[in-house]
């Protein structure tokens, strides 16, 4: 077996468990620890069943073991409120933090668009934006790498069952952070994000619509090619990332209609919004792991 980089997952909820299942299949990441705060957590029990060490004492329960277990990458799948604390503690032990919460204290990372930049910058904390951002920013970038996008707007429609209490309590964070990601990573001069929650049963598969307004007449052929190439890039880690319609062109407006089905590891297939987060988080960690294995990056406490 080739050498793997050892990792810990903080947060044994739905996201953390799905991430664990994906990480178990990774060729370069070995999940070693699952960190929770509740001794009766079903997520910790599941992790133990999968052969992973667990602690119910939060990050403080993990820290004393990080050096001896050579943990070089941590994932935070808890909440924005505790993330900064978690990140500081694991960084101090020389591990890179991949942030799946909306805290966004590190640079945004959308793998097919700017993962290489984040890794090249050797950032010790990278943030995965939002689920809507992961699903749509690659498409904005696919247009903006062809020509100037003055305005990028995304509409994410997700099933009610796939929206957790944290997101519900602070839905503004979703719209603000996603809009910022559309600008900073998507490359639109101005970004706008809308989220719609639909309670239909059976639950609907995540849908995303992306509208870009271009500065000049859109080069239809180049944009269409760029969009298809970008879809193929995302499909490498989210096979259910599907272009349903478009790109369509109306004057200077480019519209792209996507559907995002998950792999159905722990989260149901319709929750493509959650799957794309865990898949993007793992993809990011794998890229770091490859750099570490190749000797090009040695994560260390600042």
């Amino acid at each position, binding site marked *: 077996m080739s050498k793997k980089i050892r990792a810990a997952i903080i947060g044994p909820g739905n996201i953390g468990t799905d991430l664990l299942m994906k990480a178990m299949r990774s060729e370069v990441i070995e999940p070693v620890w699952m960190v929770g705060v509740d001794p009766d957590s079903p997520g910790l029990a599941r992790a133990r069943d999968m052969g992973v060490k667990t602690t119910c004492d939060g990050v403080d329960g993990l820290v004393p073991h990080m050096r001896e277990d050579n943990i070089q990458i941590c994932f935070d799948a808890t909440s924005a409120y505790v993330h900064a604390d978690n990140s500081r503690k694991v960084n101090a032990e020389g591990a890179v933090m991949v942030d799946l919460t909306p805290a966004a204290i590190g640079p945004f990372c959308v793998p097919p668009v700017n993962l290489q930049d984040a890794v090249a910058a050797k950032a010790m904390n990278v943030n995965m934006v939002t689920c809507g951002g992961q699903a749509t920013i690659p498409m904005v970038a696919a247009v903006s790498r062809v020509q100037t996008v003055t305005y990028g707007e995304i509409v994410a429609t997700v099933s009610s069952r796939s929206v957790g209490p944290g997101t519900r309590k602070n839905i503004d964070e979703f719209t603000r952070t996603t809009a910022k990601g559309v600008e900073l990573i998507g490359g639109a001069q101005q970004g706008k994000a809308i989220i719609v929650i*639909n*309670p239909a049963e059976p639950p609907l598969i995540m*849908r995303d619509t992306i509208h870009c307004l271009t500065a000049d007449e859109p080069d239809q052929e180049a944009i269409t090619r760029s969009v298809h190439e970008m879809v193929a890039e995302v499909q490498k880690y989210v096979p259910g990332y599907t272009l349903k319609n478009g790109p369509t062109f109306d004057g200077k407006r480019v519209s792209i*209609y996507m559907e995002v089905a998950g792999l159905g590891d722990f989260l149901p297939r319709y929750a493509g919004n959650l799957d794309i987060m865990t898949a993007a988080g793992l993809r990011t960690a794998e890229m770091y792991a490859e750099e570490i294995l190749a000797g090009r990056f040695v994560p260390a406490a600042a």
Partner: protein
Amino acid sequence: MNLQGRKIQVHDMSLRDGMHPKQHQITVQQMVDIAVAMDEAGIPLIEVTHGDGLGGASVNYGFPAASDQEYLTAVCKAVKKTKVSALLLPGIGTVDHLKMAVDCGISTIRVATHCTEADVSEQHISMASQISGLDTVGFLMMAHMIPAEELVIQLKLMESYGANCVYITDSAGYMLPDDVTERIALARAELKPETELGFHGHHNLGMGIANSLAAVDAGANRIDGSLAGLGAGAGNTPLEVFLAVCDRMGVETGVDLFKAMDVAEDLIVPLMDHMVRVDRDSLTLGWAGVYSSFLLFAKRSAAKHGLSARDILVELGRRRTVGGQEDMIEDLAMDMARERKSA
């Protein structure tokens, strides 16, 4: 039905819901002229916002003729007695928009969610309820889609976040009077006595007046309507008609009926791009239970792809789409056009 002596507050929607049939192109001057005339007619509360609420300016819903800030600033300055409200849909607008609207001088904020998703309004309702003197209203849309018992659970969530008034909203114009009676009556029984209760109707089945009367009878004290019915789909409950009926039944609204009729006839009707009325497509909204502002989007996509708007609307109803999913309409139309071709 005996409503003699009941006092209610009517709330005009022409300058918010009425933005839908106008594709959000009502000008600031038109808004000011109408608001001043409504003020003179004694209409106590009017709503002024993009049709899809604060922050609705978008490719998805349409870019308006002016910004929410421009509309609200101008109208709030122009009116004397009439108060102004703004609508906010979490997921589209944020608390930043809410603060902006308060700074413009609104007296009422209405925070709207789909009928099953009240918990996304906690952030906005709790913030609004802490602003001194701000009338804070929770607004549950597409309320026909769940039974009364489930609806009341959601209304109580909004009440618990700090809403002093909650609304049952028939966004699709699907409800029949008994549906309204059941929902309002149960809400009235379960909510705190001091929490006000409102009903917002659409006239897609021609039930705007009947449903609003049923709501008052069952315990609602705020009723939405719009003069000449200027609103999404077949319009809102036509307010001047409702006012006339209230007058006949001895319900006190404090509005001058003839002046309201004149605003409807002289200012609103001439503004319309098309007659807002029950026709084949708006009737389909009510029959199929579809969000009223989908109407013009379905008509446009139908024309573009050689389809029938009715077919598109019926399919949107079958898929149980909710408010805000305007982007689904063109996507669905493209799918339908492709299927027709290959069939």
